[in-house]
């Protein structure tokens, strides 16, 4: 995959570049601020972009705004936003327009290299990857009651919202694939969502539901 990086910390920028190169990807740009990063992306459109939220000059949400620009201007580029802390509100903004091929993870997750690369691949292929912490916030602030769900169904819902596949959910909960299918169908029925959605479209449905946007 061809990847562009926006990260102002030299240590992390170099570390990410090395990690991605070692995994067999091509890093086409590694920039320290949003403006230069956007210019690099415009010059040579990558398959995916990894963007830090806080960057110069104001160190607030430059990265997030750059991510929204990429998302709107180059819909085929997967956008993975990294941050020292995750906030439900930023996730909401990311999935608002075109919630296809977006991800939002804590920077810590980079430490689990395999999982991080997996998430990046998912995002580049149009799927999604949301941090468990973000999902926990979304569930806590859900605009709809989730009281009808059993604890197990809540767990499945959280994993779905993170963007995981049925197989990954089954592995995480140590149950069979059939059981996961059944839970998912129950969840969709109880929440009144169209059943049988697959992969990223179903993540979308779940996230929008939690945000109070009607599916």
């Amino acid at each position, binding site marked *: 995959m061809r990847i562009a990086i926006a990260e102002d910390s030299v240590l992390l920028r170099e570390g990410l570049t090395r990690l991605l190169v070692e995994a067999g990807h091509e890093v086409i740009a590694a920039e320290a601020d949003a403006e230069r990063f956007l210019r690099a992306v415009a010059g040579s459109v990558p398959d995916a972009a990894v963007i830090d939220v806080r960057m110069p000059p104001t160190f*607030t949400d430059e990265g997030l705004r750059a991510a929204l620009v990429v998302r709107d201007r180059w819909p085929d580029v997967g956008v993975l936003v990294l941050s020292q*802390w995750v*906030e439900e*509100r*930023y996730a909401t903004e990311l999935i608002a327009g075109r919630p296809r091929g977006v991800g939002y993870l804590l920077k*810590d997750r980079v430490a689990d290299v395999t999982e991080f690369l997996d998430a990046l691949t998912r995002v580049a292929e149009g799927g999604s990857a949301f941090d468990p912490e973000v999902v926990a*916030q979304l*569930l*806590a*602030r859900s605009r709809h009651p989730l009281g009808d769900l059993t604890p197990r169904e809540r767990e499945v819902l959280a994993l779905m919202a993170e963007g995981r596949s049925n197989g990954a959910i089954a592995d995480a909960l140590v149950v069979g694939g059939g059981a996961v299918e059944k839970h998912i169908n129950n969840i969709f029925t109880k929440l009144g969502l169209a059943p049988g959605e697959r992969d990223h479209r179903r993540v979308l449905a779940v996230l929008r539901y939690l945000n109070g946007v009607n599916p």
Partner: protein
Amino acid sequence: MHLIRDLVSARTWLALIHHLAGLLIGLAVIFIVTFGIGFGVGALPLALAGLPLLGLTLRFTDWLARFERARFAVLLDVAIPAWPQDARPGYRWLLIPSWRKLSSRATWSEVGYGLLRLPVSVVTVAISVSAAAFGLLLLTLPLYNGALPSRGAVIDGTVVRGGPAMAGAAVAGLVLLLASAQLARGLALADAAVSRRLLGPPSHLAARVTELERSRERVVDAAEAERRRIERDLHDGAQQRLVALAMELGRAQAKFTDDPEAARDLVDQAHAQAKEALIELRNLVRGVHPPVLTDRGLDAALSGLAALCPVPVDMQVDVPVRPKPAVEAVAYFVVAEALTNVAKHSRASQVRVMVEGHGFPGSLTVLISDDGIGGADPGGAGLSGLADRVSGVDGELSVESPSGGPTIISAVLPCG
């Protein structure tokens, strides 16, 4: 007895000196102030030529006010608080008064004092000195009565003479002399009361200053305690983890050639340690100031708190206009502390958090209620620290927590 003692006591004499000094000062000041203000204001239309003169006069009244406050303190032992100092200088190029200076109540009160000094002192001196002098004259009348030109004092055309009259005069003189001491002191106090109104801020302002001084002290203490807590958390948490991490990596390095399997285990442990350190640091930063609060406001920041709380939180946030950052931060920490308490002590099954903004300028109301066992101690470290933080923005915190519950914590924070 004390009447006689008062006659010779230092306080009486100081009061008399005060009146006489006031007369001299008033005499000098009234010319300077009427001339300075009169010509200064009069010359204003001439391309503001009067401004430097006005500035000079106001500098003089500033100095006079300071001098007079000191005089009241030294001679009468009356402390007059100074007007609160303006943070910005009152003059440009040394002599040009700023508009703030010209429109401030303190400035004109002090000018007014300069004008009033003379008439007030004339009255006090006239009464106190003439009472003392007349008393002394009457008391000693028997000694010199015979030596007077008409061989006796003449009152209403009759010549006062003879033993009983002399005794009466002496008694009247004594009474007047004793009364004059009280009179001088009483007038000094009255003078101080009048001057206090002009030389110092109104009493409600003075009370407010005291209150602010106290609350500032508490806020500074709270900040200091907070810094110590952060230092401790960093030292006990992340720092120790990083030490352990470096140690494990060092051991792994030593084992790599001889025992690669053990080295791999150590690297695994180090990896876990590093991730723990990251989590601790993140929580610490969130506790100091959550970045999303600055970026997106209260509603967004409170989401994170709700997700971290093990007790289900029903959160309603309605803040149409963002209050200033200090108020937002205090509101955030009220909710954070309350939810921490709910999680630790309340055994509640449900928490409600309501945050409502009532216009701007207006107030921000924060209310946290749970269905737990109650018994929260408003004097405890957490809640009293919170009360200090709330008072730092002029807000009010109330804690209702009867034993048996429920607990209701509310804060009203003024905005604007």
